[in-house]
């Protein structure tokens, strides 16, 4: 695996995304309309735990939608072509890195819309943004791997949620706890252990995807 190969593959993802702009626009619109629906049904959420949980649930669904297409949308021919050109490990690395950027974009958009409509009760913005970025990285890498698994089945879109939700729960619980600390503006020392768990989870998921993806690759 070479860094150059990964960069080229990421460039390929980006140019594909820009060429089919409607997919990206669809996901961005998904976030905005979901937040708007949440606003219309909840109005302003002032209670911090509810604010926090709702935020992460919206982000969870949006990122499942956004990342699932990373393998599901690849047609057989293009995968075969990729297989002859690049090593599987650079393919999964490129997919994960690209999706991290995509989910980070989604989470920032989610946060912006959320503050616009539902209200922003975060007291420690820096910590919240750190948790948000770590969270998007984790969501993206788990979902990219699960999307690769689901793409091998007959009923891939349905399986995407079934396979990913249970293994996303540890990540999601840690995220909700850590971001709750940020919302409440607690001292950073309270959140250190949670941040360490988040970083460790990210590394772990990435390492697993890196090791296991070659077995998914060939058909």
């Amino acid at each position, binding site marked *: 695996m070479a860094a150059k190969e990964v960069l080229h593959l990421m460039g390929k993802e980006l140019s594909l995304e820009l060429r089919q702009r409607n997919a990206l626009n669809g996901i961005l619109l998904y976030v905005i309309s979901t937040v708007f629906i949440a606003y219309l049904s909840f109005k302003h959420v002032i209670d911090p735990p509810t604010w926090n949980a709702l935020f992460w649930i919206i982000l969870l669904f949006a990122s499942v939608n956004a990342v699932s297409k990373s393998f599901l949308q690849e047609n057989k021919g293009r995968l075969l072509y990729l297989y002859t050109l690049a090593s599987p490990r650079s393919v999964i690395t490129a997919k994960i890195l690209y999706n991290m950027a995509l989910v980070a974009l989604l989470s920032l958009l989610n946060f912006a819309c959320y503050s616009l409509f539902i209200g922003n009760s975060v007291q420690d913005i820096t910590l919240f943004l750190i948790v948000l970025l770590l969270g998007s990285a984790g969501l993206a890498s788990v979902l990219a791997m699960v999307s690769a698994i689901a793409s091998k*089945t*007959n009923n891939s879109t349905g399986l995407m949620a079934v396979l990913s939700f*249970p293994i996303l729960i540890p990540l999601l619980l840690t995220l909700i*706890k850590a971001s709750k600390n940020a919302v409440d503006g607690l001292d950073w020392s309270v959140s250190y*252990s949670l941040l360490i*768990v988040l970083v460790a*989870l990210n590394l772990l998921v990435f390492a697993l995807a890196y090791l*296991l993806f070659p*077995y998914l690759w060939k058909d």
Partner: protein
Amino acid sequence: MKKNWWKIVAVALVAYTILGGFLFDVPRRAILHESIRNVHFHVCMWFAMLFTMTAALVFGIRYLLKFRTEDDIYASEAMNISILFSALGVITGSVWAKFTWSEWPLLSLKGWWVDDVKLNGSAICMLVFLAYLVLRGAIDEEQKSARIAAVYSIFAYVIMIVLLLILPRLTDSLHPGNGGNPGFSQYDLDSRMRIVFYPAIIGWTLLGVWMMQLRVRIKKLERKTEL
């Protein structure tokens, strides 16, 4: 007979657990009272599940290394037995939690479920096992389904370990072994319980291995008659 001694041990230990668990003297504790006997059943389901889950992981890894169908049969049957144990563990745990930690009436505004990290954790494990079965069912080709299911089980197992072993230590809960304490301290178990508890773990685990072995043999015979 030579190979079957451990089955006799399994039956003897489980029989001993049932008799000893219900009849022996147990420490009297506030709130728990006689329900403390559930330790011999509920906690052992949990240990047996961890064991069969790990067996599924090991056979999954072996399958990816050697691609032998036999390993895959073992992995999938270990997963099936894990579902049984996790279901029993969740049911015994949920009922126990309801009767000790929760308020009456049984179905109140808060629902039946008692909020506890470990109960939630085992429920999530059950979801993962079921997802594994759905995944296997969704792929027609046998070798492909074995390979992809192995990848999913390894991926899920490692993340589950984080969930089950690390997260509960960061959370406060009513469950013994939370908020930084080790799982079983001298406060939870005294020697009167230990003489049943340790054999019980071994007995239930061996019973699980036996069930797994029987299912694997049925699977193999089915494959043979199909071919």
